[in-house]
């Protein structure tokens, strides 16, 4: 079956999917810059910034908030165009119907995300900015998933699996995926995304003017810290298990490094934005540096924290798919093993 599929498929969907993912990641960064620098309302209208047809707006002649916001819009447009190109390539050279439908879903997703961004501007509503900030990483994770499912490895997995079965066992660890690993992967992905949503609430509730904004911010901060610990532990566990079971070892190692970096970025984000909390001052002394509002260091660290969070969600998603793929293939050869979710993914 897979050999048959592999013969018919084109390499272009995978290439376009890579391009799309590579364009979406900077888009997420740039979105973070927009929030950090408060450039979301640099234009009071969407689709026609200051009366210009969007692609024709003199971007390089603009500065400040307009430069940041329009850059985000252009990158968004690029992602949209790449999604269309991906979809065309899928319908031309992808025999799997569900992958083609997934491509349609991506197109709908990018349009939805664009409209959401536009509504944030046209309605000047911070809550939509928050939702926009949460759905962006979701789209990025979907792009990463598209890269995974269109890759040659996805279809050639049986060969990998066969090779894995021949490899020697390392201690108590099996060299193949198992249902518990899939559960861990799904849980980690959900936790990582939940953390991202809480992070978006932390960032945006601070800028809200409603009376309850303070309470929301405080609760969100506590949850963000709490879930950070859970995500840290789960990601490390997932990366560890995947690495030693031979499920995308390079990606697993990257994930482990990223989560460590993310914790440092999170601490740095707080420091460059709000300085040292009272309990930390008592222990470590005062924050000796002067933060500069919307400065390059502050903007890069804060936007980076959001972007790396998105990358972690995307990698967790791909890892989950890979684990599920292995399990699905195993279950197809061993029908006694009940793996409904894994089968569905594969």
């Amino acid at each position, binding site marked *: 079956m897979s050999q048959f599929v592999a013969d018919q498929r084109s390499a272009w969907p995978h290439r376009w999917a890579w391009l799309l993912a590579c364009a979406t990641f900077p888009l997420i960064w740039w979105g973070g810059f927009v929030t950090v620098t*408060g450039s979301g*309302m*640099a*234009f*009071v209208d969407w689709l026609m910034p*200051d*009366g210009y047809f969007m692609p024709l707006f003199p971007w390089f002649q*603009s*500065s*400040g*908030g*307009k430069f940041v916001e329009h850059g985000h819009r252009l990158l968004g447009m690029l992602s949209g165009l790449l999604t269309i190109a991906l979809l065309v390539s899928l319908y031309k050279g992808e025999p799997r119907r569900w992958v083609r439908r997934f491509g349609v879903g991506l197109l*709908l997703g990018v*349009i*939805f995300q664009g*409209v*959401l961004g536009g*509504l944030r501007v046209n*309605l*000047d*509503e911070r*809550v*939509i900015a928050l*939702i926009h900030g949460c759905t962006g990483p979701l789209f990025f994770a979907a792009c990463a998933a598209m890269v995974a499912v269109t890759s040659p490895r996805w279809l050639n997995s049986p060969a990998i699996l066969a090779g894995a079965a021949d490899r020697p066992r390392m201690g108590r660890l099996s060299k193949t995926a198992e249902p518990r690993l899939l559960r861990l992967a799904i849980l980690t992905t959900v936790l990582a995304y939940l953390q991202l949503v809480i992070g978006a609430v932390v960032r945006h*509730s*601070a*800028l*809200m*003017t*409603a009376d309850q*904004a*303070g309470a*929301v*911010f*405080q609760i969100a*901060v506590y949850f963000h810290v709490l879930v950070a610990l859970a995500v840290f532990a789960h990601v490390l566990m997932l990366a560890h298990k995947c690495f030693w079971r031979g499920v995308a070892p390079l990606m697993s190692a990257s994930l482990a490094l990223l989560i460590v970096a993310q914790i440092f970025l999170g601490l740095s984000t707080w420091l460059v*934005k*709000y*300085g*040292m*909390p*009272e309990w930390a*001052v008592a222990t470590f*002394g*005062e*924050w*000796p*540096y*002067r*933060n*500069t*509002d*919307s*400065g390059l260091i*502050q903007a890069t660290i804060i936007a980076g924290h959001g972007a790396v969070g998105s990358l972690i969600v995307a990698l967790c998603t791909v890892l989950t798919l890979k684990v599920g793929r292995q399990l699905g293939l195993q279950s197809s050869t061993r029908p006694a093993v009940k793996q409904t979710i894994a089968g569905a993914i594969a």
Partner: protein
Amino acid sequence: MLPVWKWVLARRFSLAECQWHTLGNMNLRSPSSLGIIAALVAALVGCEQAPPPQFHLNEMRMVENETPADYQQEIADVLGAMFGTPDQPFAFPESGLTQTRLTLAAGAAYNDTEGVSHGLYRRHCVHCHGITGDGRGPTARFLNPYPRDYRSGVFKFKTTFAAAKPTDEDLKRIMHNGAPGTAMPSFSLLPNSEVESLVEYVKYLAMRGEMEQRLNQYVYDELADADRVDEKGNPVLDENGAPLKGIRLNPAANAGQQEAVKGMMAEVVAPWNEAKDQVIAPTEEQIPKDNRPAEEIAASAKKGRDLFFSPQKGNCFSCHGPTALGDGQQNDFDVWTKEQKAFLDKTEQLKQSVAERDEQKDLSDDDKTALERDRRLVSEREDVIKTFYPLRNAIPRNLRKGIYRGGRRRIDIFARIHQGIPGMPMPGVGGSGPGVQGTLTEAEIWNIVDYVLSLPYEAISGPQTALPENVAEVTK
């Protein structure tokens, strides 16, 4: 997806103004569903859009003065007429504030087609300092120190005499430099015009806060217990023929009140306009030169050290500690916290009093009425206390870190020592006004400045000042 959809529909159906009935029959798989979902999100948010932000009254002071709710509303109305709203601030002519700057600083944040930034306060400041300027923005609870409450009109880091307001330059400087060691960042990337607009808005919030306090006090002193009179000046009686208490606050209809409000306004505005005449001006000849030899600086620092540790002169060590690590007194509070602490203490006393009276059996009717009143008051005060952040002590600065919140120029340190830090336990040792002699002379203050600036480089244990006896004998 479907449960969310049902939830959204159920929620929307309850609102008469949102006609979404037809959506129930919609085919979610159709290509048009995306647009409709987007519109639904917009409608959802639009229908539940938060009302425009409003200025809040200082609840603690209202409860402290036992200002009734109707008076509170009247105070808010008067303030609204004088100062406008957070979206549409109004600069009354006597204030000396510039309406254009206020307009740019207030309202929602956006850029117009010319690229001019609007809503600067909400973009840069509100998350810490709050809409009313009460230092209670969403992030404030986690910050150290808590953000400044502008409403008292007290500002810490300035170059004017302690009782005076800061100059525009002082406020601009703190915005440009930030306050190192705190969450207050530098806004040095903002254009000067935007900084000026924000300075104007900070002054506006401070004036509004001070005016609120004066109006509250005016109601307490002059109106709440006064006999009510009609338009002809005759006392208004209730159904039992007893004179009604409480004159309504309505300056628009009462010439006397109008004059009183104008007087209050003048008292609030005058110190701001006079601030530039209240700048501490150190004598030109006594200002140390920038290119002094090291020996001269060391000699000055040594004198400063003696003054620092002198109980009669500088007495700095009593707070900053014998090692200048900020480990002297640790139990004092700033004025903002002192006010809250006094409120807490008074509430506790009142609670005890209520509890004691509760146990008494033979209370007269008057006593019972007073008890009920106090019980209600305790409840109101406890509601206010729930909104307090944990009280923090004003911890003296660790002078060995080299972090100076109000600026690290010698003139900044001079101003801190000369006039202290308003609102903080740090007292000044200079004269309280132009030409007034202080505890220390200007030269002595400059000596302390030199010592303070040398502290980050001085070993905590300090070198021995006298040679050991045997070494001294050898070197004779």
